[in-house]
């Protein structure tokens, strides 16, 4: 356990005691170690928020960019160097709110990245405003009469768009979630893990207990290859299913569609060959 190569030892962590993020940190470190991911070839991209600080707390290369903008650089990092394993860690506000457009288009592009969304249904870092996934009626200093919009359903949206891997977990179930995360990382293509995580400071509604009471695991007999069935399950609200909703491994992966990788598999930085001959050829067609 303490021999985990990702472990940074004793460090100052900015999360509140009891924060769901601690479990996520444990889960991701274990998952990576168990998957034998080449540590030098791992990049974690994140945006801004408490979740987005995750890569600060384990040994890895990371790109901690702008709020809402973790997915575009993650897509580009994978497109520039296919040998890298690229994982996004960010929150619900970051990925579903500020970065909603990128989320949608990443599903369309289907880059081989894993997007782990720490979904605590509240804005933590800015101290307790509603997030896109906050429940109706959720009162905050800004949503004074309670949220009246229907919560964003990332799982349903991803399935509706035929995302290649759609899943949901809850940090209260460490073992199951670790297995889920491992599958998501191993999946070739865009993999979503919507990861329920209580915010102990600002969300008194969606607590550990609330999640235990309001979730259940998709049964063993459930097969994640039926989009309609997956969509049906994603719409359940009484009790929220956990597990892998949907996998479409036939969906072409972004890098495989790119001309630059059709003949040559090397990362872009290794391609230092002179292109002047080709440039002259192109110019000669303009003569």
């Amino acid at each position, binding site marked *: 356990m303490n021999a985990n190569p990702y472990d940074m030892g004793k460090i100052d962590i900015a999360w509140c005691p009891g924060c769901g993020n601690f479990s996520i940190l444990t889960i991701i470190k274990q998952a990576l170690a168990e998957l034998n991911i080449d540590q*030098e070839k791992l990049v974690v991209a994140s945006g*801004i928020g408490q979740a987005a600080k995750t890569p*600060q707390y384990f040994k890895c*290369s*990371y790109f901690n960019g702008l709020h809402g903008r973790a997915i*575009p650089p993650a897509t*580009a990092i994978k497109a*520039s160097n296919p040998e890298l394993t690229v994982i996004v860690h960010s929150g619900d506000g970051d990925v579903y709110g500020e970065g909603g457009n990128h989320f949608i288009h990443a599903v369309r592009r289907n880059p081989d990245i894993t997007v782990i969304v720490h979904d605590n249904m509240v804005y933590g870092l800015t101290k307790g405003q509603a997030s896109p996934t906050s429940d109706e009626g959720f009162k905050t200093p800004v949503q004074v009469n309670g949220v009246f919009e229907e919560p964003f359903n990332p799982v349903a949206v991803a399935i509706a768009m035929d995302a290649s891997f759609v899943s949901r977990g809850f940090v209260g179930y460490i073992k199951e979630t670790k297995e889920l995360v491992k599958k998501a990382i191993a999946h070739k293509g865009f993999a979503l893990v919507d990861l329920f995580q209580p915010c102990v400071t600002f969300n008194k509604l969606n607590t550990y207990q609330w999640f235990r009471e309001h979730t259940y695991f998709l049964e063993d007999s459930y097969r994640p290859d039926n989009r309609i069935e997956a969509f049906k399950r994603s719409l359940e609200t009484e009790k929220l299913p956990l597990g892998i909703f949907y996998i479409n491994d036939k969906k072409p992966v972004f890098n495989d569609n790119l*001309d630059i990788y059709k003949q040559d598999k090397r990362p872009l*930085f290794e391609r230092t060959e002179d292109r002047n001959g080709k440039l002259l050829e192109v110019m000669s067609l303009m003569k």
Partner: protein
Amino acid sequence: MNETIARELKDDVSIVLCGEAGQGIQTVERLLTRVMKQAGFNVFSTKEYMSRVRGGSNSTEIRISSKRRTAFVNRIDILIPLDKDAITHLACRISEKTLIIGEKEKLGDTGCPVIDVPFTKIAASVGGIIYANTVAVGMIMGLFRIELDILNEFLGRFFHAKSADVIQKNKEAGAKGYEIGVNLSRQGKIDISVQRHPGVKDEVLANGAEFLSMGAVAGGCNFIAAYPMTPSTGILTFMSQHSADFGIFAEQAEDEISAINMVIGAWYAGARGMVATAGGGYALMVEAVSLAGMIESPIVISVGQRPAPATGLPTRTEQGDLEHVLYSGHGEFPRLILAPGDIESAFLLTQKAFNLADKFQVPVYILNDQFLADMYYNMPEPDLSKLKVERYIVKTGKDYERFGFTESGISPRGIPGYGEGFVDVDSDEHDENGHITEDFDVRKKMVEKRLKKMGSIMKEIVPPELYGNENYQSLVVGWGTNYSVVKEALEYMGRDDVSFLHFSQVYPLHPDTAGYLTRAKNLILIENNATAQFGKLIKLYAGIDIQNKILKYNGLPFTVEEVVYYLNELLQPHAEPAVARAGV
């Protein structure tokens, strides 16, 4: 035909085609510029067009000249109006010397003398009105008395993908037009004496967007993400079309925010990337520019200026975004702004931009405009042997620190997956290894580290170019795409006491600037904007307030004639300092 329109042309003919969008002006422009170049003429074309796909009035000016001319002129020597509105649209540019050639039947009564050439009917007689454009091209070839073989050979190549029948009909259409042109020329309607240069045939004819893109390729660019927006779309198009040729990742992003964040991610992972956008699209990218400043990411940003605020005049030109790119992005961090004067400079500076960005780990701008992006002319193939792709990526060791303090402020830049180290970058203030910090001492050091890079940047500023006599009395000061128009105006004026100082790097300002300016008794600033933005920059960094200004902001580039006119006004002895506002 009316005697008054018989005229003598010297060695520089301005041909203007004008009609609705969708009538084929662009096809004629493409055909004519190429075939003229093939015949050994220097060609230049610039277009002004409306933001619509069909209808309206668009025009293209094609200059055929003995000497290479790359500026917009007001004068129209030969006008080919494709509809009646064309005459109204160009009324202020038509003079009694303009030879108007068109289809009387289509044009109706224009109030101007028109030489009637029924292009459409002739085309129909050959096999379809679709060939009308080729008839027009043939006619112009005839006016210039170019050998018909050149046209025929060219049409064969131009339409090589079409059937033999189409090629044959184009040739027939070209020949019919040609005959008319030769006849007009024989009748003395027009006398053209433009010189031909055999070498021109082997030159490259492309537009500003294409040359800028090729400069990027020569600079080692292998990644572009952009969102289509006039006048920058040509860059994304070129890079996409040549993605396989050069190994370039080219992606149309969902928005500009995604585009620039992708490109910054790409540099982080070892690619050499650029974004191409216009002022409005750039506005969306601004937060990420600040990110590049913070994580010391190289990035090349092409901003094609067009008249704003907001959507403005989407298809027109302006130099209104200098302050926008200079002051955009929250916080303090170095940057570099290049502003090519012409196509050749667009090629060379974009090539250089990638090396500068990589070397200093800062945003580097190619500030251009619609005028540059859309202009075509022939120029000799650039000498690529002199251009080097400079790469500054280092292999990381185990204890690598991305933001390690150095004398110059520039830390060796590692990338993930190359070496044993971790490469950590953070938009938060960070320590040397890229981890978030709120330590005030580290903060102070990091601010100073980033700003210190300016010292190295200052040593490599592209110097301004002095055109004209070293011992000038008056100095015209300009930047970016006013390069050619001012040069040509001064050449026309022929005064050896007036010179021109042109800046193709506008920020940081070259340290010699004040020296150049203080040597002049009289300074005149010329800018394609309303508030003299570069003038403000000069005042700030060179301490000189230029009083005389020629400004234009109606959406069109300067013409040679108006630059001559306003320079003459402002150069009159004892004239009071003044601001001339050009355009109708």
